[in-house]
């Protein structure tokens, strides 16, 4: 079951990533995707060991030593799957480098094992610029979802004109 994965040598991406260690966790900001990831201790330890020279089979012992506690091989594989899903590992072929998290969960369920509880990685997209070189966020002509009519204007006197069936409306400010 683990043969193919045990032979792979996972490699963490280094280019385009900013890494900040926060206790036993790690915050990784991906400049290319503008996403930030909080790696929980297991994921952070596994990520640190993805040096392109350490096999999956060899990681369990190393990660266990890093964390000071035993770590199941399936947890290692799940961490790798999650790291792969969020794009933090160098991979050109998911089938060669390992299984996806979806496959991991399916295999775990079939085997009757405990489902992976909380995700090992939390991710968030950083906001786009509200203003850039003269752009505005003030009723620029489009909004809005039902009552979500331009939160930037506190008085909410923008009126969202939305056609039936349309998802977005046009932000209209009364001039009379």
């Amino acid at each position, binding site marked *: 079951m683990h043969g193919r994965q045990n032979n792979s040598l996972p490699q963490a991406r280094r280019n385009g990533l900013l890494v900040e260690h*926060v*206790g036993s966790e790690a915050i990784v*900001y991906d400049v290319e995707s503008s996403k930030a990831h909080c790696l929980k201790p297991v994921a952070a330890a596994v990520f640190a060991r993805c040096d392109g020279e350490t096999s999956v089979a060899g990681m369990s012992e190393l990660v266990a030593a890093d964390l000071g506690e035993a770590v199941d091989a399936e947890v290692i594989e799940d961490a790798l799957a999650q790291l792969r899903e969020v794009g933090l590992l160098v991979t050109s072929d998911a089938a060669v480098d390992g299984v996806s998290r979806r496959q991991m969960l399916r295999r775990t369920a079939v085997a009757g094992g405990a489902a992976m509880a909380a995700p090992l990685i939390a991710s*968030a997209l950083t906001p786009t610029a*509200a203003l850039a070189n003269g752009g505005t966020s003030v009723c620029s002509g489009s909004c809005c979802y039902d009552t979500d009519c331009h*939160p*930037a204007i506190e008085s909410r006197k923008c009126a969202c004109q939305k056609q039936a069936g349309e998802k977005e409306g046009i932000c209209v400010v009364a*001039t009379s």
Partner: protein
Amino acid sequence: MGTTPGFTDELAVEAHGVRLVLAASDPGLLAKVSELAPTGAAPTSGGGRGQRFGLSTDDEDVYRVLQGETVALACRDLDLALAALGTLVEEHVAFHAPERVFVNGGAAQFRRRAILVLGPPLGGTTTLVGELVRAGASEWCDRYAALDRQGLVHPYGARGRKADRRLWDADDRVGPLPVGMIVTTHYKPGTGWNPRPCTEGDGVLALLAHAVAARERPEYALQVVRAAAAGATVLEGERGEAGRAAEALLETAGELFSV
């Protein structure tokens, strides 16, 4: 939306390291516009005038809000025009401040710590901050929290905005605050307040996800939010009625924040 009108009155200010020019078509309007300068703004002179934000009116009682040469809004409601102009000014400073990382959200001061409230647009952040104030905290920031290099929170808002007038003067004399609590929440009718305790890493992630200009200056943003989250209590969860959530938060803060 029309040609650029002339401005007869201008005021150059600097706020959080950002130079800008506030302009109006008459002195009376300039007095109102100048109240939109963010907390910490001071008049400035000399070179490097900065981006201009203006408000003009004409014979037809139409108010035009301009950013640079672009007419951002035209309307007959002065309050709306001022609100729009204030928003533009705040966003411009938040995006361009060289030594600050601005985070979308509100903040209240309690026992000389900042309680940062983060959430999605229209998620009730302002409402919760308002309830924190009613329950005994002091207002500190609305819409943006201004973090400095050490992760301290500076007051940010505008006296001219009605929401800020109530308690601004008292807090203006207090220096920047360390972050005591980071709360990520949004309003969901029918729910109670049972937040999930989170890690410091979660706090860093939450701040980064709300940091204006994080994409433009990711390294600095990461450094600042990391400093801000250090030692803070981090909570996350949906909330129902804001008053109850606020009381519970202050009770928790009271236990955590030493006087």
